[in-house]
């Protein structure tokens, strides 16, 4: 596993009062740990969270557990969580696992933020 470079970039930023966590690259068993850590920190700020998946080319089943944790942590704090990214690589796994029902999904971060303030 260690011979492969990390295939995921995680960036957290404040935007319009929300924490936007952007994942770029491939989300799988090897990379999901760093994404989970960033989401945990985002939830701890107490601000609404936008999980930006628009830059993901690959979303594996490892991402499901990450979403479970995010949903759970956000629910405890009654935080609003939105997903940005409706490309097939992301939408298809969410659809197949029924998780699409639980998170509002928007095509872009801008749309997710706009819908939130509406």
């Amino acid at each position, binding site marked *: 596993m260690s011979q492969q470079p990390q295939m995921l970039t995680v960036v957290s930023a404040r935007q319009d009062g929300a924490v936007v966590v952007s994942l770029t690259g*491939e989300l799988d068993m090897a990379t999901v740990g760093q994404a989970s850590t960033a989401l945990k920190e985002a939830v701890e700020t107490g601000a609404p969270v936008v999980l930006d998946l628009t830059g993901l080319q690959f979303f594996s*089943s490892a991402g499901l557990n990450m979403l*479970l944790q995010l949903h759970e942590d956000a629910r405890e704090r009654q935080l609003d969580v939105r997903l940005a990214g409706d490309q*097939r690589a992301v939408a*298809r*796994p969410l659809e197949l*696992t029924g*998780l699409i029902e*639980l998170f509002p999904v928007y095509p872009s971060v801008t749309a997710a933020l706009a819908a939130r303030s509406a």
Partner: protein
Amino acid sequence: MGSQDDAEGRLRRIEAVTDTGLAQLDTEKLLSELLERVRELLHADTATVLLVDAAGRHLLATAAVGIEEEVRQGVRVPVGSGFAGGIAASRQPTVIDHVDESTVVNPLLWERGLHGLAGAPMIANGRLIGVLHVGTVTPQQFTGDDLHLLQLVADRIALATYNQVSAVERAAVEALQYSLVPTVLPEVSGLTVASRYVPGADTGVGGDWYDVFPLPGDRVGIVMGDVVGHGLTAAVVMGRLRSALRAYALEFADPGTVLDRLDRKAQHFEHGTMMATVSYAVVDATREQVTVALAGHLPPMLAVPGQKTVLSELPVCTPIGFPSNGQPCPSTVLDLPPGGVLCFYTDGLVERSDSTIDVGLERLRRIVTPEPPEAVCVRVMTTLVGIERARDDIALLVLRREPGQD
């Protein structure tokens, strides 16, 4: 020079202990044996190994010489507190020259009359395994050389322990997995069933399982499930889900209801700590219809003679254990003509890091045909898995309604 030679000589003796004849000892005996040597080498009075627990929050005294009561009393030290806890948190070897409540949290250490302590973190494969420390009742100071030697020993013990613990855990998980996933499926009239289970190369045995059981009224239950996570925890959760599902299957006829009950149980008793995707299907007495419910699980492939094989796009509810939106899990009835095949699988079969799930599903769809299940299993495994071991574990179950006589 003299002290260097001496140190090397001492190290060689440690190596002799760790390298030979220890494979057959269990972890505790191995540690006691090593600690005896360490104590002797460093002219110390006590030597203790504390191993970190699975959650990484506490150190548990696992082996000790000269202060055996630490183990007998099950001493636990929070990571980050006191002497051993501080070493675990900082991962730095440390020496202290007085032992009291300001420097250590474990009263046994000052009650034992210890003056000085030297400790080193035990790290293997980048993972903290525990802390090794030695103590002396005389006001003797531990030197930099002592600390260096202690770290070398700690590294060796860490590796030996890591290998042993992971070997034991692997063996336990495999025993559990293979006892729960049937290798011989029950004979069911009117159906033929074949299956495969392969542990993942990166993850070892995980939480994938399948199950086939007869139900009242000559019906047949078919389960395919995948617990998120790997190792012993996932295998234990899988065992619990498997039993619970069997129990609900006897009580409720509708597969969606069975999954709802399973979900309710999982959420109530294992709140937020586990998640599994499960597919549960019931074949009716005539074998003409199969009622399928999916909780976050990939839908089965349906291959019918004379037709194109399809991914049965069924409605799906959220995974088991996942806080759901309260919607009941839907059941869908599929017609299974004579000779028709249903193929259930876990995501390890269709997920590859170089392609999206669509690509994997399409590859599977093309090779599932309405043929005898054993032949379908062989073809699927040869084509999709081949000679390369998959990273994640894989479960596959193929059932076929026997072709009609006419």
